[in-house]
């Protein structure tokens, strides 16, 4: 529960974990824009629900499903 633990990629977080989005990698501009439009932005709370076959998570009050490559671009600070 230490506050100083480093941010992790969404794709590698155990289901059931809660946290906050710290950064969305901008190496793929299109992807970041589309994620932002869905509400996946720094500061948003996140609750990881499932990793396979697709990554499913609750972002704020929206349930989202993304492919692993996308989840890899989302950095989460675990609470």
């Amino acid at each position, binding site marked *: 529960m230490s506050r100083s633990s480093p941010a992790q990629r969404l794709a590698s977080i155990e289901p059931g974990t809660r946290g906050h989005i710290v950064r969305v990698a901008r190496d793929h501009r299109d992807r970041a824009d589309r994620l932002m*439009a869905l509400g996946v932005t720094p500061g948003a709370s996140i609750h990881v629900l*499932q990793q396979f076959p*697709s990554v499913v998570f609750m972002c704020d*009050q929206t349930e989202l499903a*993304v492919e692993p490559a996308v989840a890899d671009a989302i950095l989460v600070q675990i609470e």
Partner: protein
Amino acid sequence: MSCAQVAVRKSATEPLLKLRARPLRLALVGNANVGKSVLFGRLTGQYAVVSNYPGTTVALTLGRALIGAEVCDVTDTPGVNAVEGVLSEDELVTRRILETGETDVVIQVADARNLRRGLMLTSQLAAFKLPMVLVLNMADEARTHGVHIDAAGLAASLGIPVVETVATEGRGVAALKDVLANAAVPNPRGDHAGDHAKWAHDMAVQFRRLQPRSAARVQERLSRMVREPATGLPILALVLYVMYLIVGVFGAQTLVGLIENGLFKQFINPAAAFLVNRFVPWAIVRDFLVGEYGLITMGLTYAIAIVLPVVATFFLVFGFLEDSGYIPRLAIFSDRIFRAMGLNGKAVLPMVLGLGCDTMATMTTRILGTPKERLIAVLLLALGIPCSAQLATIFGILGGISFAALMTLFGVVLAQMFLVGFLAARVLPGERSEFMMELPPIRLPHMRNVVYKTVLRVRWYLGEAVPLFLVGTALLFVLSRLGWLAAMTRGLEPLVQGLLGLPARTTEVFVMGFLRRDYGAAGLFRMARAGDLQPVQAVVALTVMTLFVPCVANFLMMVKEQGWKPALGILGVVTVIAIGTGAALNTVLHVLHVSF
């Protein structure tokens, strides 16, 4: 700008409702699946098809509403995630109406639970400098989830009216009508200019209170069960089985039997024959009405007795699934498969919708991200997805033969779709977009909406499909009278009898199938009933028919969405694949001595 009169208004105190040369134009704009179409229905009294998943509305719907003493034009728009940046086809439809001055007031509908996302859109909408009202819909669900919004504070900060509604129950709609007069251009957003996300986040933090609570335990558990593979896949199998029981057994066998044998064979057809023979002196007209290709004996019997029961039961089940929020969750399982076919999980929506009607589904491909994805989806819909009317005949014929026959057909068609998709993904230029999709909440459907939707769709079927059915019957009659049918049958003999191993009469059926493949299949249905079709022949003929382009209407929609060249290309490719697959299947079944 044509709306200058409204757009230049400086304050909310100046009345908006006043004498005008034309009706005031209101546009309902908002994120996907927030209830714009429900609100549209509440305002105009017109029904726009409502479902529990994003992408139900992909084109503009127009209606009129009485606001105070004034009649206003209301436009329902496709849901958007954004109105700037990279936009999909349906988002562009919405953006266009904002840009072109086709609207005087924007009613932004937001999901009260998702204030942050709603505000992100508000921030983008503000750039169009149109008077706005913000509607926070699904206020009841928000409260059960512990979300409380300070609507008054929000309104003051934004400088526009904010109304909380529960559109499905009509709550807050009167209040919305009242505040429309105060619609205003939103306040400038201070120092966050450009960063919509940060501004929305800060605003949400300021005006929203979250009480962590999980009141919706059942909902959560259900959602989890359909999403996880260990429980989700058995549930999918169960859903398909129940669907088969209702549509394939109850609809296609019980109801069809009752209506066809009971109503048509015993009453309507004999009565029609009696009346026509008695009162119509001309043999040719008699033949046209009640002969072998008679309008009543063949056309009406097919349309009403064979296809209608299945279309009706299918849309009932389908409407229920649509509103439950189950269908989009299939994307979680299918994403990996669709990715191999140059698509992503989102493509499950048009594909499943195609089971209802391929023509509508072809239009729904607009929700997909790239031109390449849209083209592949349109191709696969045309190739492999049987629409409800055709499912009717498939269940009717093969259900009567054996389960193995049914599975052979679906197996071959699915394999063919996968193969074609796999190749198309590699041959066609362009890229696929990444899979990221919003999952609507799992809800218990309102039976009223489900029944209403079913009635609407059945009425649509009757209005659109039946006349074409009758035209097809008339065409067949004329062809047969002129002797052309016999000539075509002879001409196609090597193909139909030789390659596909089917009886010569099947050619007529394929002619009908060209208009609508379910009519063709309905023709097969009759041949099968009469014992003119061996089980293997039935499977081969139906496989070929299923792989054909669905109907004239679907072809025209392909032209509309993709243009003539791709549409003709798809038609050619699909026809060759259909006949090639049929020939191969016929050979394999014979070599293996399969008899079902």
